[in-house]
């Protein structure tokens, strides 16, 4: 068990599992189970390449009004959003 003091950057191991499952199942319902896109755009290394972290973190936390992208701040923290972006940037579609 990691304690709160150490939790500033990386989510704890169990939270990571929870976040990855959220990414696959819930984000996946719009972005595709393997992030190759659906109603929402693909979230693959090459599609995110030219977009800064802060911009993408904001998108995840606050959504994009006027588009189907919803805000997730109610259950994802800024650090966790940043961690998810990191995972997406090193995502491999072949599993």
């Amino acid at each position, binding site marked *: 068990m990691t304690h709160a003091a150490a939790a500033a950057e990386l989510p704890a191991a169990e939270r990571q599992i929870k976040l990855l499952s959220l990414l*696959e*199942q*819930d984000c*996946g*319902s*719009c972005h*595709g*189970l*393997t992030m*190759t*896109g*659906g*109603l929402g755009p693909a979230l693959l290394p090459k599609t995110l390449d030219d977009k800064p972290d802060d911009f993408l973190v904001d998108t995840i936390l606050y*959504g994009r009004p*006027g*588009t*189907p992208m*919803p*805000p997730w701040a109610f*259950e994802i923290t800024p650090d966790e959003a940043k961690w998810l972006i990191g995972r997406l940037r090193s995502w491999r579609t072949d599993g």
Partner: protein
Amino acid sequence: MVKFLPFAVAALIAALPVSAVAECGGLRGTGDLGLVIERADGAVQVVDTTRRRALCTVTGLGDLSHASLVFSRDGRFAYVFGRDGGLSKVDVLTGTLVKRVTQAGNAIGGAISQDGRLVAVSNYEPGGVRVFDAATLEMLADIPAIAADGSRGKVVGLVDAPGLGFVYALYDAGEIWVAEMGKDATAPKLTKFTGIGRLPYDGMVTPDGRYYAAALFGEDGVALLDLWNLDKGVRRILDGYGKGEQPLPVYKMPHLGGWSTAGRLAFVPAVGRHEVLVVDQKTWEEVGRVAVYAQPVFTTARPDGRQVWVNFAHPHNDTVQVIDVPTRTVVQTLKPGPAVLHIEFSPRGEHAWVSVRDSDEVQVYDTRSFDKLASLPARKPSGIFFTARANRVGY
């Protein structure tokens, strides 16, 4: 033939990638069979709705997130539309994958023609519709979705339209297209309706095949096309049904596929609200609303139209509510468990099958007593499809 498996053993076997429960292949009808999509595994289970058990598992279908399927008119074959652009033909009777083609990079759904000869698939990438020979899966027509402004975009809400062919909407450009399939399936005749509204994200055809409705994300409202009178054009219904209220964010797009028709009423999930709209299908006016637990995803009518079952978006997707149609009130709240993704009724409505993704099971409920009758193990189940769909327009 009928082997008794203790539940734990059945669960263990079903957890194996290739199921050892292999009872497919005997001589029987398919009228009481169905398929359950195992989303993460690229597999479908063949289920028997009379004995309420899985018969066998068919694997190798690719990425099945958001997958849907249609049945051949004899109820023997299923055409499964995968997110990865795969189109798979599954023999429900023998439990085998007959053929699989990868027809696009990123697909969303499909439909089968009235005569059962053609299967059409709608694609996000490259945006358009492709039409296949249902027997061979040979491609007959390729219709790119190039909008009036020259842009190519995603296709959504593809349905079969009796007497015409297929109807669908262009998400990015806001258009509805009718593809008339004449004698020569390689040369469909297109009729295009532009400026129908912002971001149509799904479509449905009424059970009689007369109207096509496209739900709009970018506006409060629904675009409606009378397929018997194409020259009258598209009109807007339910305009501004949420006026003056700030809509809530949407965590899962609600589906129109399950727009339930109960007599002359349709029960429509409201986008971004904790409500189901009640619409009179003669006048296409809203005649009421039913307050529900959270944002609805599917509203599914029991075949007799007396009940409508509703499931909900994340983070409230552990719940199912039942609306009593005559009184338009919620009469039952069920808690099947985390991530209820889909509800399917037995052909005459005595049972409801509910997929519960995160507890890896499909639950079967009695629709009169609401008792849970059975739980079948399934790996990350999503859609449930029974062969009775073979004879329904829009399924």
